[in-house]
Structure formats: C-alpha cells, structure tokens
C-alpha cells in the first residue's frame, strides 16, 4: 500500500506534476480537461499513468505492455487486412472530463447531459441510470452505486479507482485472465487503458439487479480503451450489461477493450453486451472469463454496426464441473465486417461449454465466425456443443465459418454444427402480400432467425435489440 500513498502524495496537488508538458507534441484541447494528444509512445503512457495518479507497478505494467504492443505484428495472417488501415499515430489515447467520477446526476456537466439526450438514451437506460457507471469518453462521467448494492458489500468502481482503492482485491486477477501479450490489441489496452468497470461481489451475494455501463465514443479519432474486471467470490451471482451506441464520425475510430471475468467456486456471472457502433469504428475487443469449480460464466454478445469487429469471448474452464457459454448475435450490414466467435478452453474434468452463434449478412456485409474449442490431454468427461447459423439476405453478402476443434483423449463429446440459409425472395413476397413493407418483412425474418437467442436476453434488452434490427433493416432495402 505504501507505494500507492507515495504516488498519491507526490501528485495530489497537480495531477500532471513531474510531466514535461512541452515535451512531445501533446495537443491540449480545452474542451477536455486532460488530453494525451495523438500517437503513442512511452511519454503518452507515462502521461496517462501520471494523470491517473497510479502506483508505480501499474505504470510499469503499462510500459511493458507498450513494448509488447509495438513488438507484436498485426494478426493479418488470419485476420482481415483491413486492420492495416488503422493509423496508430493518429489516434488519441487518452481524454478525460476530469478524474473524479461524478456521483450524482446534478454534477454531470450540462454539455455531456445534452449529448446523452441527443443520442436518445433508451428507456431502460434511464430506468437504471441511478446504478449506471456511464462512460463518456475515457472516464466515467457519471457513477453512482446503487445503495442496496453497496450495502451488500459489492464494489462497483472504475478501473483507476479499483486499482487505487482496492488493490488487495483486484491486483491478483488484473491482467491474469487475459495476459498483456495475449494479442496485439490486449497489449494496446494494457498500455493505455482508462475507464471501464471493476466489480467485486462478496461470497454468497446474489446481486438482484443487473449492473450496467454504457460506453460511448464521441471524440473523433479517439480510441477508447476501457478495462473491465469482474470478480465474483464463492457462490455469488452477478449480471452485468453493457451497451454501446456511437455517433457517426468522418474518420475511423478505434475501440479496444479488455474484459476479464473471474468466477470463483460456485459463482455465476452473466455478461451481456448489446452494441451498435457507427460504421467507421474498429472494435477489437478481448473478453475472457476464468471459471473455477462448479462456477458458470455466460457471455451474451450482440454485435451490430462497426467497420470491423473482432471479438471472441472465451471461457477458461479451470475448475471441475465449471460451465462456459457464449451466445453471439452478429449483424453485418453494408461495409461492415463482423468477425466474431468464441474460445472454450477446457482445463478440468467434467467441464461443459456451449456456443450458439447466429450471424446475419445484409447488403455487402460480411459475417465471420471463428471458434476455438480445446480439450487437452488427461481430462475426462468434457463436453462442447457448438451451433453456428448464418443468414444471408442479399446476393452480395458473405459469410465465413472457421472453427478449430482439438480433442485429446477418448472420454469427451464434442459436436459442431453449422448451417447457412437465406431469406428468400419468395418469403419476402409472401409477407408483402400480407401487407408488410419489404423492410418490415425483412426485419420480421431476421428477428425470427434470432428469436430463440433473443429470448435469453433480459426483456428490455431484447426490445432494444429488436428496435436496432428494425432500424438496420429499414436502411438495408432499396
């Protein structure tokens, strides 16, 4: 703890003391209280760390991650070459509206409130706003833990606060579920992360309301690198929901988050994402959970929008009888590539994993499924079931499926099935004949295709999902 207090003392008065503000080419935009400028080097990382008044070990963690990021090539030997168009020197890696998360709605600056309003925050977001850790650009602009939740001993803070105030809880798992060097983008996040949610649920506590956070990118060329770590202690339960809507920008934007989940013995975590990035966003996210004995981790991931999304939520099934599940819905419209999937790493006996993926390709959209199921030697009684269904709507759309399944030993059952189908002109005509517009007919078909999955979403989310699909389909027909 002493190293943290040291840091706090030396930087308490001026968060950027000790930083040579003239060095480098930091552009100081007055709209933002703190701005790390464009481009990424050691100084950017030092700057972020200093602004956040971080302990030396975090700064070292960031610096070492930066080296890893710079040394790792882009994964274009298997991934889309579109990644090569990202200009890492033109991206802003840190912006902040001030460091202290706002505790009440009144404290939220008026211009931010206006932006929220203009975005049209969905009904259910308003309903839960009291409990929302809403991320506006890098820092949580609004944060208010529900009284009931904090009374239960649940910690729900942003990443800086989590590492600063509760290192004894979070340090143990931070960067452990997803090591810095897991991939180029997890390394990038580890170097420049800010914002995100750190949550700890004490043993036996079942959090009745889902915790929520909304992430938005609203500065042009500004990458958002939130970092989330959720630890559910033995026998506890949590549902976490994140939603993303981003306004349109003229140039590409990068979003690269890292989300780590830890379910200790008997715990249950459900992590729900419904996102709708604007179609110039690169959304390159690493999500993984560590499931201890008899615990359950379930990812529900719904991807709409973005230029390129690469996201393969995974579960490392470390404890006996643990369960992992990924439910994925992806909708790729014109100019969009949804490259999504799942990773199931079995590391204990009698572990079970399930993957259900449904993708929809519209117009020139492209949906790709990539999956890894790995059952190493000397385990017994592992099961995996994977289902991948793709729906193609127009003749120009494309779908790919690339699973990789490794099974060692004769005591497991693994099954992968995939199919491709389409919405036929006859189906659309049939529905039009009953008086539906082409867009409505399309939307009905698409909703029908994902219906069985959408049912697993909480009510308000499936309503929002349906609304998003309606909007996408309206624009997709001529």
């Amino acid at each position, binding site marked *: 703890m002493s190293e943290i207090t040291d840091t706090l003392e030396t930087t308490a008065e001026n968060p950027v003391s000790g930083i040579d503000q003239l060095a480098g080419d930091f552009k100081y935009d007055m709209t933002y209280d703190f701005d790390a400028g464009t481009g990424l080097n050691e100084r950017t990382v030092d700057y972020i760390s200093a602004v956040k008044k971080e302990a030396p070990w975090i700064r070292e963690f960031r610096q070492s991650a930066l080296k890893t990021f710079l040394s790792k090539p882009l994964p274009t030997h298997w991934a889309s070459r579109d990644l090569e168009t990202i200009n890492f020197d033109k991206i802003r890696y840190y912006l902040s509206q001030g460091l202290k998360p706002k505790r009440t709605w009144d404290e939220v600056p008026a211009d931010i409130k206006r932006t929220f309003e203009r975005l049209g925050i969905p009904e259910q977001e308003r309903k839960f706003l009291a409990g929302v850790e809403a991320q506006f650009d890098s820092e949580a602009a609004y944060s208010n833990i529900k009284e009931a939740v904090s009374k239960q001993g649940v910690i729900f803070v942003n990443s800086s606060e989590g590492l600063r105030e509760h290192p004894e809880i979070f340090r143990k798992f931070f960067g452990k579920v997803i090591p810095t060097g897991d991939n180029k983008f997890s390394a990038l996040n580890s170097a420049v992360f800010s914002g995100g949610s750190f949550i700890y649920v004490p043993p036996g506590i079942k959090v009745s309301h889902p915790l929520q956070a909304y992430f938005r990118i609203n500065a042009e060329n500004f990458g958002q690198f939130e970092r989330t770590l959720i630890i559910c202690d033995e026998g506890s339960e949590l549902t976490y929901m994140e939603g993303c809507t981003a306004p349109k920008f003229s140039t590409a934007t990068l979003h690269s988050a890292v989300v780590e989940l830890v379910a200790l013995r008997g715990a249950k975590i459900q992590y729900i994402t419904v996102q709708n990035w604007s179609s110039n966003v690169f959304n390159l996210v690493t999500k993984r959970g560590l499931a201890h004995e008899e615990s359950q981790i379930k990812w529900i991931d719904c991807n709409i929008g973005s230029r390129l999304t690469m996201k393969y939520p995974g579960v490392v099934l470390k404890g006996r009888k643990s369960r992992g599940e990924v439910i994925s819905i992806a909708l790729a419209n014109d100019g969009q590539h949804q490259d999504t999937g799942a990773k199931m790493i079995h590391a204990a006996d009698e572990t079970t994993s399930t993957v259900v993926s449904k993708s929809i390709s519209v117009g020139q959209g492209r949906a790709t499924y990539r999956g890894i199921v790995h059952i190493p*030697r000397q385990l017994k009684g592992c099961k995996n079931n994977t289902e991948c269904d793709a729906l*193609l709507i127009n003749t120009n759309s494309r779908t790919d499926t690339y*699973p990789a399944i490794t*099974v060692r030993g004769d005591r497991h059952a693994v*099954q992968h099935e*995939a199919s491709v189908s*389409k919405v*036929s002109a006859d189906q659309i005509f049939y529905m039009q004949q009953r008086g539906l517009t082409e867009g409505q007919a399309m939307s009905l078909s698409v909703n029908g295709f994902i219906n069985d999955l959408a049912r697993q979403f909480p009510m308000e989310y499936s309503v929002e999902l349906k609304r998003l699909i309606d909007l996408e389909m309206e624009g997709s027909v001529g």
Partner: protein
Amino acid sequence: MALATPAKPAVADAIGGFTPEVFARHLASLTASPAWWLERKRSAYSRFEPLPMPRRTDESWRFSNIAGITLGGFSPGAGGPDPRARQASEAFATALEATLSFLNGSLVGGNPLPAGLAAKGVVASTLSEAVAKHPGLLREHFMAQPQKLGSAKFAALHEAFIQDGAFIHVPRGVVVDRPIVIVHAVSGAGTAVFPHTLVVAEDNAKVTIVDHFVSNDATRQFACGANDLYAGHGARITYVAAQCWSKEALSLQFNSTVVRRDARVQSLNLHLGGKQARHESLSQLQAPGGFSEMLAITVADGARECDQRTLQIHQAPNTKSDLLYKNALLDQSRTIFSGLIIVDPDAQKTDAYQSNRNLMLSDDAESNSLPGLEIQANDVRCTHGATSSRIDPEQEFYLKSRGIPQKAADELLIFGFFEEVLNRLESEELHAALRKLIRAHLRR
C-alpha cells in the same frame, strides 16, 4: 545416399536431398522424353527451389507437425523387378480391366486392357508413353489446377522429379465397367517416389480407378504423389485410393478433381500408412449439375499423424458436393482435418455438405477439426459438422456382455463407424477389398 552437401543449412532444409545436381542427373536419365516435358520439369524445379518450407504461422499448416516435414536424407528411387508389387495388387484382384504396377517410380508389370476397350480408344498406359502419344491431353490436364492447400512447393517437387505414373483416358461415351488398378510400390530406405495417376473421362464416359500405395519394407521413405481427375460433361469417375505406405514413411499427396456439367466424381481415400501423412484434396465444381462426393477413412494408430486438407469450390450454380471424412484414432495418434467450402458469388443453388467425424479410441490420441465455410452466394444449402467422441460405452458393454473381447468389440464398432462411408461405394468388390485392408491393418 545422396545427402545434400552441408554448406548452407538453411538452403539444405529447403531442398534436402533434391539438389540441382540430383535434379540434373534425373533429367539426364530421361533420354526418351520430349523437350517440352523436360522444360516443364525445369520450370517446376525452379519454382520448388526458392519456395520456403511450411512455417508455423501458415494457416494451411495449422496444427501440423512441421518439424516432421523434412526433405533431408531422401533421393529419387530406382526401379527393379519386385514380386511384392504383384502381390499388392491382389488386394484388388477381383474382376479387373487392367493393372499397372510401378516400383520406385518405374513400370514393373501389369495387365493390358481387354482388346474391346482398347479398340474403343480407352488408354491405360504409363505417363511417359502418354507424354509422347497424347501431349495435348497432358498439357491440358497434368498438374494443371492451382495448388491452393499449402503444398505448392511439394507439388513443384513432384512435377520436377516425377519419373512415371499412370495415364487413363476414356473417350466420349465409353463405359469401362470394371476397375483399373494401379499399384505404386516403394522399397529401400531413403527412397523418394513421386507417384501420379491422371484420369481423363471425356463427356459421358464412365470409369473406376484404384490407386494402391504400398511399401515393400518398413523403412523411412518419402512419397510425394499426385492425382488429377477430370470428369467431362456427364462423365462419371469413381476413384479409390488405398494408402498403405510403411509406418515410417513421410507421405504428401495432392488430389485435384475437376467436375464439368452434370458430371459426378466419387473419390474415397483410405489412409492406413505413413508416420506423417498429409493429403490435400481440391474439388472444383465448374459447371451446373456437377457433383463431387469426397470420402475418406483413416485409421490413425501408433504415433502417426494424419493430416487432411480439403477444398470444395463451387464455381457454378446448381452444383453439389458432399464430403464425409471419418477418422478412428488409436494409441498416440493425431489427426487434422481442415476443410473449406467456398461458394463463389454466382454459384446460386449450391448444395454443399462437409462432415468430419472422429472416433476417439485412446486417451492419448488427439483430433483437430477445422471445418470452414466461405459463402458468397445467398441462395445456397450449406452445412458442415464435426464431432469427436468415443464409442458409446453402452454399445461396448452390450457387445462385451455377449462375450466378445474388447479388441474384437472395438473392431466391430470401428467397422460400424466406417460403414457409412464404405456403403457409399457402388462396387461390392471394392467395398470388400477395403474392409480387408482395414482388418489386416487393425490385426497387424
């Protein structure tokens, strides 16, 4: 043994025993070959030499034991009379039209086609004869398709060093009822062979071909083989390959199948041999109505690695492909199945299926499945599936409770597992011959 001079290890790794000197000697031995053929071989060698060996990051070699793919210590074999070559063909001895037997790349025996078929213009000859007599057909069909599955280097090596092979040509409308059997045998440690079977079935022709690959001794050998199948409009080819190389052999085999309008090709590859055996199979459905049925059975045992890479490309509407690859894994064996279905944007009404089933019979065996799809047309029926599971313990118990010992029960269940594939063969004789080979292998 013609080992490479240990000057530059990097280069030696990339060409092994197949040095320019060895290649020059090989060319010099082909005194009777026409200039265009020698030129093709030179061009192939110049492609082979600079291409790198497979690398860990190559997607097309994912999960393969790349360290096991080395060219050092091998040199092209020399032919000679061999009694085993004839013996091997007896596995497919029933009701044949003709046989061709090769040892270490040279023709050592065989039975000619019946006069009736020869009179109709059917050709079952060596490639070297065809180079002289049918240069047009060879230019059009010999190694003419792209290498898309990762072995461009080894395909070039094959083309550069090929000594001889089989050439089957069935003219328009001619039906060859019984199989033509080709035996490719290898003997001697360090021997490299480049077996090749080229089958051209013209419009509405029908033919059945069997390739039987055998080792005469259990030494380390290198088989780098290829087969080209071309089915013209309405033609029908049944192709069966029984790969029974020695368990020390390194085997790389490249198949190309071209299916024209309304043609149908059924191929069944049985893999029993090789320490490391890789089989690449490319089916191109080039015109409406074409159908390619791709079947394979693998018995992976010992510490063998069986690596299968397939590609079904639908280039025209209303085409069909159906792939069923079944692997039984014993001991410390490994299998890799990597399959891809590509549906081109214009190939509407494609009906494509791909299935890989792994029967896990040992706790130390490892199966890897990569069943892939790339679909660019929207009006298609495309499905794939992969499973890895053990024998149903209930079934096993039931058999044992009737007094059947474990090994015999396993064998029964393995055959039960393979039956779905073998049943697809129309010919009872071929079905029986393959069963016999599998049984002999299991009881070895």
